[in-house]
């Protein structure tokens, strides 16, 4: 072994890129090494969240001594080398690659949903593509697939980067999208090329978020919402989830993590919404209903020794996760909390409680929700979501769609004066806000359960009520919470349990996971009787990072952006004076005025709880 090789292995390797010297750890890719030096190499198939593709070749560079150009994203540095990233040869190759992609990229940029936020368009502009030397496909080859309630597929715009396929397999473990056929016939398909709406797709929209072009788009509800706003007979209300509020600024060119909640409220009113509500209200409500359900299950299992009680209890807020478990682990549906998601709880209350309280005929109400999520569009269309006597939620707008709507209204959102949410749901708590981040539901539940059971302040256990053990971005997290002392049963739970003595010296075991590929790990462990089967409560979120990384959030979304949005969410939580769900006065008023038979009571059950459907693998690999 030569001296040079000895120093190279396991040590930092010297490389020269465009005449600049740098030492990088073994197996750093050329792409990352160049980034260190501030050199931007264009990419299309590469995505920080995914395994390397090395497919599109647009990142090619010249490596001295190599006969051909090399894909920098998939070239791990293992020896000292000299690299040129923008030589004439490289620029010409990149141009040709882009021209080849554009030659069968059918569609018109100005009418494309991704106009001005398209990676292909951006590169075509950067590389000065003004002609189509390889021709340009005139007639679209594929019919656009409108079968899904969440995702529109337009294969005519697909450049075969396979980010969607990798996302669906690696991050979500769903495998709804797959590369089919070979060579020039290669295309992204579903199982047996079924319409997407008939497949195992969970509607999470993570593929849309990673698509570099307009081949995958959200089912757009902005036209319907405008129609409702423009109709003077309609009373249009909107509820806004916490995650879009931490990201909407990105639609207006601001840095990720810029909170614009209160500016957005003003913008929404100016755009024509009659009322602006805070979904955190029903997030707090969820904690009370779902938390009570958990305590009932624990009491049933531990004290009444009822073998039919299903534990651990699973959260039910994430509609992507719900479709996932309905399809892949239907035998565990009894474990899923019957509490509806905050969106659907709110939907049921707006057309009943709010309508009654404000003298509005529910049939004139158009209930819109702003969500970070494309699966919410599927959720609101479920036949069981009509408990108010009407369709509980009429339309779901994703963060991206709202950005578009606000821009069309001519409003520069970041410049708006601040304004608060509307009554009677106005005041939410910090607990509701953190629902937007992975671990947030668990943290909120812990804040409430600890105070209600132990009779102490959560601050006694966790500084500033920040339950740090459940935070973070680790895919699967596990935490234990010993209950050393118990307090008296609070008034609201008198009907549920006689005392807490049975919980004394117990240890509450909880787990959190995000991304359904991680859910698969947890579910398989439970099935095998592993550690997670011993848990009492598990939070599942379909999307990486939780709602803040949802499929309806601004593009791009990546690790760095997710963590900035999380910071915005935790900062918003800290800014609230009330940060515990059970202290939300509007929620307590709701039980006093409307859901008069209490938490988990009959009326609450009718409006706030739901049931699930076994959608296990049918004969056709379809969910029908």
């Amino acid at each position, binding site marked *: 072994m030569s001296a040079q090789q000895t120093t190279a292995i396991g040590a930092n390797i010297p490389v020269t890129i465009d005449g600049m010297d740098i030492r990088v750890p073994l197996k750093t890719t050329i792409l990352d090494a160049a980034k260190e030096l501030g050199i931007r190499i264009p990419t299309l198939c590469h995505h920080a969240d995914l395994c390397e593709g090395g497919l599109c070749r647009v990142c090619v560079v010249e490596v001295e001594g190599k006969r051909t150009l090399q894909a920098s994203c998939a070239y791990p540095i293992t020896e000292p080398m000299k690299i040129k990233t923008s030589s004439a040869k490289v620029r010409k190759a990149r141009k040709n690659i882009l021209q080849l992609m554009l030659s069968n990229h059918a569609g018109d940029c100005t009418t494309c949903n991704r106009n001005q936020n398209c990676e292909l368009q951006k590169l075509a502009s950067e590389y000065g593509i003004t002609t189509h030397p390889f021709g340009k496909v005139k007639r679209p080859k594929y019919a656009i697939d409108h079968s899904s309630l969440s995702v529109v597929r337009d294969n005519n715009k697909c450049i075969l980067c396979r980010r969607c396929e990798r996302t669906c*397999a690696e991050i979500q473990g*769903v*495998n*709804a*999208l*797959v*590369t*089919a*056929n*070979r060579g020039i016939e290669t295309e992204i*398909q*579903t*199982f*047996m090329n079924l319409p997407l709406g008939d*497949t*195992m797709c969970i509607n999470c929209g993570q593929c849309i978020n990673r698509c570099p072009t307009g081949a995958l788009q959200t089912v757009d509800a902005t036209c319907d919402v405008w129609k409702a706003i423009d109709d003077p007979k309609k009373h249009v209300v909107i509820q806004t989830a916490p995650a879009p509020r931490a990201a909407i600024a990105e639609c207006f060119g601001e840095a990720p993590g810029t909170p614009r909640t209160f500016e957005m409220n003003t913008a929404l009113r100016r755009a024509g919404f009659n009322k602006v509500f805070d979904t955190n209200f029903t997030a707090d409500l969820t904690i009370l209903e779902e938390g009570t359900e958990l305590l009932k299950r624990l009491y049933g299992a531990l004290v009444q020794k009822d073998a039919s009680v299903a534990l651990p209890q699973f959260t039910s807020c994430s509609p992507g996760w719900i479709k996932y478990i309905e399809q892949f682990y239907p035998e565990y549906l009894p474990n899923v909390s019957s509490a509806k998601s905050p969106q659907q709880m709110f939907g049921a209350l707006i057309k009943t409680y709010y309508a009654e309280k404000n003298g509005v005929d529910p049939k004139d109400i158009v209930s819109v929700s702003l969500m970070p999520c494309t699966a919410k569009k599927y959720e609101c269309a479920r036949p069981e979501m009509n408990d108010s006597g009407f369709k509980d939620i009429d339309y779901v707008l994703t963060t991206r769609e709202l950005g578009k709507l606000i821009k069309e209204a001519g409003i520069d959102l970041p410049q708006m004066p601040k304004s608060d949410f509307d009554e009677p749901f106005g005041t939410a708590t910090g607990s509701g806000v953190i629902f937007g981040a992975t671990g947030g539901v668990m943290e909120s539940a812990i804040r409430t359960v600890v105070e209600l059971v132990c009779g102490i302040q959560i601050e006694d256990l966790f500084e500033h009520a920040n339950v740090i053990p459940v935070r973070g971005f680790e895919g699967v997290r596990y935490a234990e919470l010993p209950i050393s002392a118990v307090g008296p049963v609070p008034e609201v739970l008198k009907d549920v349990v006689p005392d807490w003595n049975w919980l004394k010296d117990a240890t509450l075991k909880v787990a959190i996971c995000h991304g359904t590929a991680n859910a698969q790990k947890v579910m398989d462990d439970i099935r095998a009787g592993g550690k997670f089967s011993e848990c009492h409560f598990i939070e599942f979120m379909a999307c990486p990072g939780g709602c803040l990384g949802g499929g309806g959030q601004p593009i791009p979304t990546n690790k760095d952006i997710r963590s900035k949005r999380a910071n915005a969410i935790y900062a918003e939580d800290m800014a609230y004076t009330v940060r515990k769900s059970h202290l939300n006065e509007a929620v307590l008023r709701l039980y006093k005025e409307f859901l008069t038979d209490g938490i988990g009571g009959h009326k609450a059950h009718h409006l706030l709880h739901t049931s699930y459907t076994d959608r296990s*693998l*049918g*004969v*056709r*690999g379809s969910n029908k």
Partner: protein
Amino acid sequence: MQALDKITLKEMSDELIATHGSAKAALIPILNKLRKNNVTIDATTLTTLAQTLRIAPSAIYGVVSFYSFLDHRPKGKHVIRVCQTMSCKMAGAAKVATALKSELGIEFGETTGDGLFTLEHTNCLGLCSEAPAMLLNETAHIKIDAVNVKDILKSIARATPVASN
């Protein structure tokens, strides 16, 4: 063509998984064996296979659609694959193709009405020195021309008993 028996599949796949180390590694050998046993590789087969191997049905579909010999589309009892590569073309493969089309009354990619023959193209079979060449199921036929392909077809049709219904 026959449907897939779940229990037989389980036994067969377990054996092949043991040989090849993992379900993923055994996938192509399993698919090959199914094809040899004349099992129709359709949606039902793929789903059953997916459940047995615990691989996503779409992933198996991706593999099947990649290899033309594992095609999931319905095929005739006998599959004719005419080489479409340069050497065979230069030796007159086009005339053979025309003869086959007119004799069977179908285009390439189609199956005869009686379900007996499917006509396809294939890429190089490595028989350039004896071009033009074609595959009839797994048998290579060399130096074919417009006349002798008709004899080949006739002998096959004669050897195949007509299904009585």
